[in-house]
């Protein structure tokens, strides 16, 4: 369950990165549709956070430690909203690039989460 979510979130994050990268390439700021995309990716990360905590509550142990696992889950959840707010403050292509960078960061976090859980 968690592994499937990790893969889904990573793919969604990369898709978001490509989409916002495309907007930046066309010299456009992030628009409503981009924010809906960010909401979807954030929702996936939130589900992952909940599922991760449920798994911990059921007594399963991540390979590299519970603290690190929870820290990464929270970081993954906060990643896209933070970048989204920054793109609200920066209504140029650079706001779009920031969200694209956020997507890449989230994808990297997912790879790390996969390792930490012990996939």
């Amino acid at each position: 369950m968690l592994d499937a979510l990790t893969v889904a979130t990573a793919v969604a994050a990369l898709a978001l990165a490509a989409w916002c990268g495309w907007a930046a390439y066309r010299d456009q700021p992030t628009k409503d549709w981009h924010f809906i995309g960010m909401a979807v990716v954030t929702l996936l990360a939130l589900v992952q956070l909940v599922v991760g905590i449920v798994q911990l509550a059921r007594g399963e142990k991540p390979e590299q430690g519970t603290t690190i696992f929870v820290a990464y889950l929270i970081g993954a959840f906060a990643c896209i909203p933070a970048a989204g707010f920054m793109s609200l403050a920066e209504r140029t292509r650079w706001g779009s690039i920031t969200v694209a960078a956020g997507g890449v960061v989230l994808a990297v976090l997912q790879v790390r989460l996969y390792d930490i859980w012990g996939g």
Partner: protein
Amino acid sequence: MAEPAEEVEKPGRTRLIGGPGMLLVWVYGVMVVGAVSRSAVQIATEFDKAPLAYSLSAVAGLVYGFITYSLVRGGETARKAALVCCAAELTGVLTVGTWTLADPSAFPDATVWSDYGMGYLFIPVLLPVTAMFWLRKSRTPN
């Protein structure tokens, strides 16, 4: 690339987070979270394993934090302070990077700056250079 006309600048304070600066703040912010939380966990749980490496990660986190704060705050003094810190950061990455390669036994565990930041996609070595270019460019014309 046209800058938006809505640039409301308070007189006397250079805005450092317009355009590319916003991306810099984001990447620096990520590095702050990465370095600070990593060193906090490591120092709290296994400091004896590699004291030097973990302390260096903590220092790196502090430097990143200060640069992020300077960028967000803006102004000429903050710009200069950030420039100095970026130079320090670059020196740190190059020194620690070389040190980890020359004497791996001093570092039983990796720091943020090990191998020139390879574990962080070389961002630690690319970031200060980019930031220094940006900070030089945003100097207030006198």
